């Protein structure tokens, strides 16, 4: 798996003058500092999750004096995180699949064909990236009430998908349009047809772009508060972000429980990120092999 990667990367660095090595060294030091500073908030979050409230205020940066493991159990129970984890998984994954499938199909068409109305379609999809979502709350609420979609998983899945489609389409188009035209002609001569070409060639080749879209979409769906707040009312359907904000009263935040809950909720996002990131890098392997 790794061989083609290393082969390819080795090439530009084949002439490592000592000067380059030195600057690479300085670069690595800078990167490490940047990395450490950026990693710190996550470490801080996990450490704070083990503290008591007075301790959090008195020593915001120290290690916990006592490791309050019960914070996690309390947060889990009070915020009913078991239920909301399940719901968040269902909603996020369903919306993710819809976004990727519909987004990729639309991007394929928009990047490979010239047709009347193409510019209009692109302009329309652009609009989706511009509207601040809070101003769509009331219209969406009224619409979904009328079609009896409120208070179902669909009330989140469809709006999530719709609002993420713009980004999915634009990022994927940018990527697909750099795939050479000749490949398409070759595939058509082979008799695979357009959809065969899409599934067998375009999709695998676009994996890095789709993985990128996937990461961002996952994060957005997993963390969305506004839609989850307004479109779902059955406690049994509540998603995670609602659970996470249950410990703030407006006058005070119970940081002990908030951070414990946040720590639990952040773990899946890290896992998903690491998995998808591998996909971004794998695209390179596929590219090297096909070449």
């Amino acid at each position, binding site marked *: 798996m790794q061989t083609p990667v290393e082969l390819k990367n080795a090439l530009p660095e084949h002439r490592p003058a000592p000067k380059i090595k030195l600057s690479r060294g300085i670069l690595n030091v800078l990167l490490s500092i940047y990395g450490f500073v950026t990693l710190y908030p996550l470490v801080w979050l996990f450490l704070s999750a083990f503290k008591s*409230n007075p301790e959090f*205020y008195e020593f915001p940066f120290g290690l916990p004096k006592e490791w309050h493991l019960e914070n996690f159990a309390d947060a889990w129970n009070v915020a009913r995180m078991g239920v909301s984890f399940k719901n968040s998984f269902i909603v996020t994954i369903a919306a993710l699949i819809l976004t990727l499938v519909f987004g990729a199909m639309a991007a394929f068409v928009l990047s490979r064909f010239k047709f009347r109305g193409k510019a209009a379609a692109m302009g329309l999809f652009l609009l989706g990236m511009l509207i601040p979502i809070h101003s769509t709350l*009331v219209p969406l*609420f009224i619409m979904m009430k009328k079609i009896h979609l409120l208070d179902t998983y669909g009330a989140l899945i469809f709006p999530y998908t719709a609002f993420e489609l713009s980004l999915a389409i634009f990022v994927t188009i940018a990527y697909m349009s750099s795939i050479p035209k000749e490949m398409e002609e070759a595939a058509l001569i082979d008799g695979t047809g357009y959809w065969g070409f899409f599934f067998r060639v375009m999709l695998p080749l676009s994996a890095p772009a789709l993985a990128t879209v996937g990461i961002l979409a996952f994060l957005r769906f997993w963390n969305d508060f506004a839609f989850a*707040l*307004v479109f779902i*009312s059955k406690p049994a359907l509540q998603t995670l972000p609602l659970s996470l904000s*249950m410990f*703030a009263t407006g006058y005070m935040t119970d940081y002990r429980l908030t951070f414990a809950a946040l720590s639990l909720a952040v773990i899946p996002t890290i896992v998903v990120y690491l998995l998808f990131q591998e996909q971004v890098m794998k695209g390179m392997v596929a590219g090297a092999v096909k070449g």
Partner: protein
Amino acid sequence: MKKLLLLTLMFVFTVSLIGCSSGNNKTANSEKTPAASNGNSAKKNEEKVKLSLWHNFTGNDLRATMMRDQIDKFQKDHPNIELDIQAIPPDGYKTRLKTVAAANEMPDVFMMWPGAMTKEFHDGGLIQPINALLDSKPEWRDGYLPGSFDSFTIDGNIYSATLGLTPTSILFYNKAILNQYNLEVPKTWDELLNAVKVIKEGGLTPIALGNKAAWLAQSSIISSLADRVTGTEWFLKAAAQDGAKFTDPEFVEALTYLQDLWKAGAFQEGFNSIDNTQMEVMFAQGQAAMMINGGWALSNLAANATPEQLKDMGATVLPSIPGGKGNPNSLSGALGSAFGLSSKVEGNRLQAAYDLIYALSGPEVQKMTLDSSNLVSYKAELDESKVSSIFSEVYKLVNSVERTPVYDGVMTSAGSDAVNNGLQELLMGGDPQKIAQKIQDAQATSLQ
């Protein structure tokens, strides 16, 4: 097929029910007395009554858990009432409520706030009065302290019965620090300025302030300070834009007093980017000698400060202002949130809703709220063993002084917003006259 039939039947049944109840309602509108519906309680027991309830008691603090227990208890005691309960995080509660209000889809019973929100909901025809309920439980109604229904009352109708009382402008002080500098608790404005000077020279912050959320200086400082200068009557007139304006010299003078306090170096650096919890911690840890804060601080302090820190704390009212028109022995205070009732609730659901509201705001709950370190606007005896010494002290203080209005409890939302931002500007050196003008404009425009 069977399902379809069943559904059709249910539909017909529901439609006829709605038809009936709305028919009934027209005749009983003016006298929706509980007695009337008690009469057919035998009938009522046969069918389940459905009610939706929205609240924001989601946290793990004493009060929130207590309220959730009460709701559970109500469900057990009333098997014929089916509650659709939604516990909504406080951060998003108002957004959620305003969205459904815009769509005219209010829940049946829900937490709402006095003042601006009650007025807007009333104007939009979304809520109905609960006078009938209060009149049916006179011992409960009469247990409330004077003025407890004020900002829930419109045209003589009461729309809600408050769950709590929030005094907003308590002057907390650290006894140890005042002793250390040989200072008395400041009773007059000059004493306060002198204390500020002495403590500042000693290298400590005189008054901790956390005004990031902007409403703090408005709710905690100006509500009381301005009342000292202008008197309550002037403020009520100005808020109604009836015979007084926020550009009047007395209000500008009040703003100037606050600005002078800031100029004297009373507050720590950067208070406009610090939130109220950080200010409370600063005070609790002895980094500041005083803090001007509301009743909410009590439960926060109980959760975040050590018992030793709590013992050093004392509480009093803001000092008097020379020549001021207001009563210096007063505290600004606001009624807490309460359960509102949707205007769409009628028929036997109305009685169920009354029962629910009573169960969640009645004398017992008031007492339990007090015991969980939250003040109430209700005659309830405090069990001092259950609360901190500073809480008992504030409890006694509140019961011994007059209560004056809080600015954002009386003004329109846009007007209060202008005061909030205006005070931040004032405490960065803004011109009191111009700020007063902005407040006046915002309040006048939003009243039209």
